[in-house]
Structures are given as structure tokens and as C-alpha cells.
């Protein structure tokens, strides 16, 4: 019960930041340089056509009035229309978010699969060759910019070897996307049992996912190593060793379970960061994700789209952190006791 009420309280706490984000994004987008009316009136437009466009876009109202309109629409689930694409922002985000999520999750998963065992091994044998390997990979992953890794992988695996499919986004143009259920092409393809499309979608995803994964390797491996080191030097581990428990049991049950807390927190951070920051990977692999959408919207001073993007990211951030907190509460026996 205690845990449940604690989780409920944590969810309530998430509401004020969301409102704050709404206000700040509204103000920030208005403070962007560049005049959307001028931009959308086109190159050859004169003053009167610009004024006409401005009125059409509703930019001739005062700021508070614009904000009230915005709140009203938001409550109805309406994020407004993107000026540059002429479509509802909600529809666009819903189409692009799964693309980014699928790629990011794949990258994160790959990265975890390598980084966590590596970090654990490095921590159990500090100073050994595996520790150095860990350090090398981590340094390389952080210091190679993602667009470079992406282009390099394309050059080797697509251009030279021809193993990878053409970097043309989520699916080659020979395939039609599976009917949308989750928006994740791989999962949707499995749901309708279309293995051909599943393969095609998976193959498209490998290179960009590896690119992202390399980048995410560093924080996860470092955090795992540090957390494991401190856990292994903890009194309870010494006590366990003194009691003659098996080394595997000490490592995974006593040390790793405690080290999992900071690692999980880091994962949450890395995930949110990857989701927004993979715009370069999206550009290189023509991935129709949310990052390139946001950049396009920023360049065009497309208020509704930028606001929608920031709001969506903020909500995701809040949700991910909430989930991590809930998971921590469930994993960590101390959390329940302390409150």
C-alpha cells in the first residue's frame, strides 16, 4: 500500500512541470527570431500580402489572447496545424514519433546489451585488458560524432560491401508500410505475419541503430562500471564474501541489484536524450523521425509544430522519469521502508 500511494504521489508531482513546459514553450517560440508571416508569404510577397498572411495565421492578436486560444485547443487535444506542412501537428507527431521511438529503442537495446556486461566485467577486473577495452570503446563512442559514424558505416557496409540496404529511411521503396497498429514497423509487420516486411524494416534499422548505440555506449558503460565498483566495495558485499557466498551470487544478487539503481536512472536520461538528439542520424539515414521534423519546423519558425514537438518531448521525459521512478520503487527494498 505504501508503495502504491508513493507512486500516486509521484504521478501528481508530474503535473506542475508539464504546465510549466506549456507556458515556456509558448513564450520561447514567440521569441524566436524570424517572422513566420514573412517566411510563408513567399519570396516575392509585398507588405499587403504579408499582412494578409499574418491575419490568416492569427498572429495579429495579442500574446495573452494567443495563449488562451492555444490552451483551449490543447485541452481538446488539438496541437494546431503545422504551417509548413499544412497538416495537424498531432497527426504528424503521431506518424513520426514511432519512427524515432523504434530507432531509439533499438539503439538503446543494442547499447545496453554491450555496455552493461562490459561495465560489469570492467568493474570486476579493474586494470585488466577488458577494463582498457571498455575505456577505449567508451572514448571512441563519445568522441566520434554520430553523423561521422553514420556516414562511415554507410560507406563501408552499403557503398563498399553492399551488405546493408540503401539508406532510404524506414523501408525501401519496394515495400509498402504494414497497417499501423503500434507505428513500429517491425512489430506491425509481425502482427500481420508479414515476415518479408519485418526483415526489410529490421535491415533498414541496423546501421542507424548501431550508430545511435555507439553513441549511447559511453554513459551506460561508465555508469555501470562506477556503480559496480562502489557496490563491490560495499560493506554488505564484504559481509557476503566473509559468509562464504558464491561469487556469482555476490556479483549478480548483492552487487548488481544495488548497482542497477543508478544505471536505470542513467538509462532514462540517455533514452530521452537520444530521442531528441538523433536528428543527425535521421538526416544521414533519411529517417522520417521527430528530430528532423523539429529542425524543419524551427527553421521555418513554425510555431505550432515547434510547440507540439517540445510539449511531446517534455511529456515523454516526464513519463520516462516517472516510469524509472516507479521501477526504482519496485526494485529497491529500502525505498518502501524509508517513506
Amino acid at each position: 500500500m505504501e508503495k502504491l500511494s508513493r507512486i500516486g504521489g509521484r504521478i501528481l508531482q508530474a503535473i506542475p512541470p508539464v504546465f510549466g513546459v506549456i507556458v515556456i514553450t509558448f513564450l520561447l517560440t514567440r521569441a524566436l527570431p524570424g517572422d513566420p508571416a514573412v517566411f510563408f508569404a513567399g519570396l516575392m510577397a509585398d507588405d499587403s500580402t504579408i499582412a494578409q498572411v499574418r491575419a490568416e495565421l492569427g498572429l495579429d492578436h495579442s500574446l495573452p489572447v494567443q495563449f488562451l486560444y492555444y490552451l483551449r485547443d490543447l485541452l481538446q487535444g488539438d496541437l494546431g496545424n503545422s504551417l509548413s506542412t499544412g497538416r495537424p501537428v498531432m497527426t504528424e507527431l503521431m506518424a513520426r514519433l514511432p519512427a524515432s521511438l523504434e530507432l531509439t529503442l533499438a539503439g538503446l537495446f543494442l547499447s545496453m546489451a554491450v555496455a552493461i556486461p562490459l561495465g560489469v566485467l570492467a568493474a570486476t577486473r579493474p586494470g585488466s585488458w577488458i577494463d582498457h577495452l571498455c575505456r577505449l570503446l567508451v572514448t571512441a563512442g563519445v568522441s566520434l560524432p554520430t553523423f561521422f559514424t553514420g556516414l562511415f558505416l554507410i560507406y563501408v557496409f552499403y557503398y563498399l560491401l553492399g551488405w546493408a540496404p540503401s539508406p532510404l529511411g524506414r523501408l525501401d521503396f519496394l515495400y509498402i508500410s504494414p497497417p499501423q497498429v503500434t507505428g513500429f514497423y517491425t512489430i506491425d509487420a509481425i502482427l500481420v505475419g508479414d515476415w518479408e516486411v519485418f526483415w526489410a524494416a529490421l535491415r533498414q534499422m541496423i546501421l542507424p541503430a548501431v550508430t545511435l548505440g555507439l553513441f549511447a555506449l559511453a554513459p551506460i558503460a561508465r555508469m555501470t562500471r562506477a556503480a559496480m565498483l562502489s557496490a563491490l566495495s560495499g560493506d554488505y558485499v564484504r559481509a557476503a564474501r566473509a559468509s562464504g557466498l558464491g561469487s556469482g551470487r555476490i556479483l549478480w544478487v548483492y552487487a548488481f541489484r544495488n548497482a542497477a539503481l543508478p544505471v536505470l536512472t542513467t538509462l532514462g536520461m540517455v533514452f530521452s536524450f537520444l530521442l531528441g538528439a538523433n536528428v543527425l542520424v535521421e538526416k544521414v539515414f533519411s529517417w522520417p523521425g521527430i528530430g528532423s521534423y523539429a529542425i524543419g519546423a524551427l527553421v521555418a519558425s513554425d510555431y505550432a509544430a515547434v510547440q507540439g514537438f517540445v510539449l511531446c518531448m517534455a511529456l515523454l521525459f516526464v513519463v520516462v522519469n516517472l516510469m524509472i521512478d516507479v521501477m526504482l520503487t519496485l526494485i529497491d527494498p529500502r525505498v518502501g521502508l524509508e517513506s
Partner: protein
Amino acid sequence: MKRRDLLKTGSAALGGAALLPFLRALPASAAAGSDTLVVVIGDTINSLDLHRTGTNRPSYQVAVNVYDRLVRFGTKVLEDGTISYDSTVIEPEIAESWEFSEDRKSITFKISPKAKFWDGSQVTAGDVKWSFDRAVTLGGFPLTQMAAGSMTDPEQFVAVDEMTFRVDLPAASKLALPDLAVPVPLVINSKLAKEHATEADPWATDYLHENPAGSGPFKIARWDAGQQFVYERNDDWQLGELPALKRVIVREVPSAATRRALLERGDVDFYMDVPAKDAKELAESGKAKVEGAPVDNCLHVLGLNVNYAPFDNKLVRQAIAYALPYEDILAAGAYGRGKPMWGGTEMTPSTIEWPQPFPYATDLEKAKALLAEAGFADGFETTLSYNLGLADWMEPTALLIQEALGKIGVTATLDKIPGAQWRTAALVEKRLPMHLENFGGWLNYPDYYFFWAYIEGHLFNSSNYSDPEMAELVDATLTMETDDPAYAPNITRMMEIAFEDVPRIPLYQPYLDAAMKPEVEGYVSWFHRQLALSNMSKA
């Protein structure tokens, strides 16, 4: 729509190959067959309706291919074998014939009975009127472009009868007819559009944004915003030779390096708007065919804003024109893909060819002497602004200019302006002392260029240049027919003034390059810089 339906027609040509599991085995374009073209572009289209507020430039491509106009420009083959549009030839399209009234103040078009919309209905004068009314009423860019041909008011467009359409002009103008061949005055199926119009949206902008309703040689089969769009041939098109291509897949690939790799690997057939560096290297490597023609009536220039000292001084402007490293700029900024616009020998041009080289060339001694004469022997400080959105040529050019100006004692600080702010800063507020600019006029007349770029208050006059004689000349010449005896002397005089005052120093005339597989034929270089598909084929 089932997977593979998209390519069925293409694969049927291979003789029942659709039955084979070729999808994974063959590269896309080989599987696609010779009547399917796979194109990559770097930009993303944001609408299928050119008239809509906010439609971006790359989207004009759709209007070019899916709609017909009353008339169109012809094509010609240049000396190097490149095909280019011909601004001097106007051919019938929807209009099978037209005639001017005696005073040339109205043009009457006879609509061709062969002009049919995709739904099979006849194109009528009513459709033309509705479409033109739409262009001038929705405002923004379409209105401005229509105004260049003296068309601003729906009352000017008259549907005389079902098959006869008339445009009334306030005064005779040589620009009116050519202006009907640019992408803007497209003809929409008004019956279909009106079915989807609402009180709040009488011009059906919401509908036409995603559903074109035209009569052109291609239809849009599919549009996945931000990813791709697919053209499908309109097999019933009779207003010209039926295009050889049945299906064209245009894929949006933002990274230039990826686009190049795709073409070199042979996975795509055609790469539109190639950066000059890639165009040069692709052509030299022999991995692709590069075709392009100089863009008519377009110049890459260094603008000197006369509202900012010391550029109000003609001698300073001339000094800078003598200081620029033209050859290096053409080599490093455009990789040789440009026509030199320096080193002319006459201060008074003997021909009315435009653009033609200005009478300046790199001559640092002369530049220093002119600066000294102007009272700036020790040089001065200024800023040189450029558009980050066009950094591929502007950045190297700006660096070279900065270095060259240093040699005559002028210190220029570089000022990078993001693409979204460029128009406001350079063209609307006109507040950049020294800047790079690339205006090109759609209508290929020198006076049209001077009208936009050398008249006070006009949009592309980013130098704030003002000269009463120039204004008078442009005003008198803009609507004048080219065979008028006063035309040539007026044009020559305009160029002479431009040579003498140099508020805009031309660097070169750019090329519009496209790279393609050797088997792709019939690419035409157009003034609107979009890919027009009707002449193209794949062997």
C-alpha cells in the same frame, strides 16, 4: 493498397517478373524497369497545391508535372548537348491557339478539345477562370507572380463561352503571355474542387493541398509527407507527346552524401539539384552523367548597400569590383559550374545579351588607386553577410572575398545569417552592408531583372540602389515589346548604368545541375529549377 502493387506495372514490362521473388534479390531500380524512374531530392515538399499559403519552393515540382497551363515554353538543345527550355518559344498547351486584340490589351485563347481532366471531363473556360481567380485571390506569391504579367484582378479574366477564354490587361505588356507559362497559372478542375469547397474555404485549399485535381501528364499516386511521393502517368494526356515514364518515385533524402552514394551505387536513377562539388566529381569519375545549363536571368552577386558608408561612394564600389578574386570564386565556390561574369571589355555594351560580363576583373593596383581616390587609402571595416541556408557556395565565396579585401586594406567580418531570417534581413529590411545574393528572374528579360533588383523599394534590390534614370528606363521598357525600336537602346543604357554604378557585383551565372545514370535521357533545365518529367525517358 497491397505491397508491390506500386511496382506492378513496372515489373510487368519485364515479362511476368512480378511472380518472381525479385524484391530482395535485385537493386531497386533494376527491379523497377525502364519505365520507372527513381529520383532523390534533398528538400521536402510540403504541399501539392502551389497556391496555398506556406507552400515551399520544392513543392512547385508537383505543380509543374500534374497541372497543365494555357501555354508552355518550348525547349532547345544547347551547344554542349544539354536541353534547356527556350524563353523565346511559346507553345500551345490547354489553349490550342490565341490571339491578341489590335491594341494588344487583351488576349483571347481557344481551348483545345483535347484538354481533358483526369476524370475525363473537358477543360473549360470556366475552369481556367476559376483557377486564375484563385491565384490572384489567395494572395502571397501567386498574386505577386501574376502581377508581373499585369494580372491582379479577377475581373480581368473572362470566360467568353465554354471554349473561349480572355485575359484583359490594363496596358499592353510583353510579359503577359510568358507569365501564363510559369508554374503559377495552372488550371484546376473547378467542378471537382468546388465539391470540396466550404464556406470558410471557398477555394478548396484544404482539399487541393493533398488531392491535386488537374489535367497534366502525371498524377500523384501517393504522398508520404517527409518521405516520398510517387507520380503515375496520365495515359489519356493528349496535349503533347505521351511521356515515356509510367511511374516516378521521388524519395526525399536530406543528406547530400547519402544521395550521392545512392546514385553511385546505382540504387537511384536521378539526383536533382546536385551541389557543385558533387556535380564536378561525379562527372569526372564517370559514375554518372551530369547535365545542367546556366540558369537564365540569374546571377550570383556581391551586393553593396548604398545606404551604408562607404558604399554610398561609387569609387569604393568600383574598387571592390576590381578587388574580387573572380576566378578563385568560380573555382572554389562553384567548382567551375558557372559562366564567368567578369572581364568584359566594354563600359558600354554593344549587345543586349543578358547576363553579360561586367567590365571588371581582378586588379588590386587599380582597386587601391580607386580606394585612395575615394579617400580610403587606409581601408575601412565592414561586415560581409551570407545565408547559411546556401552555405555550400556562399561560405567559400565569402571567405575568398574576405581574404581578397584584406589585400586592399578592407577588413570584412563575416556574418552568418540563418536561412529563416535571411529574407527579412537582406530583402525586406535591406540592412546588410555587404552580402551575397542570388536573384534570378523567371521571365527572361533584362528589364525584368533590373525591375526587381535595381529599383528603389523593390524586393531584390538588397543594395537600396536608386537612380532616377534607371527607374525611368525600366518603367518605360518593362511592358515594351522587344521589337520596339526603343527597346535595345534602353536595355543597353540600363546595363551601362549597372556597369558604372555596380551596386551589385556579379560573380558568375550559376548552373542548375542534375546527375543521373547514363541511360536516363531527356532532362530539361528549366527556369523554375524544378524537375519536369514529360520529356524524360530511361533506356
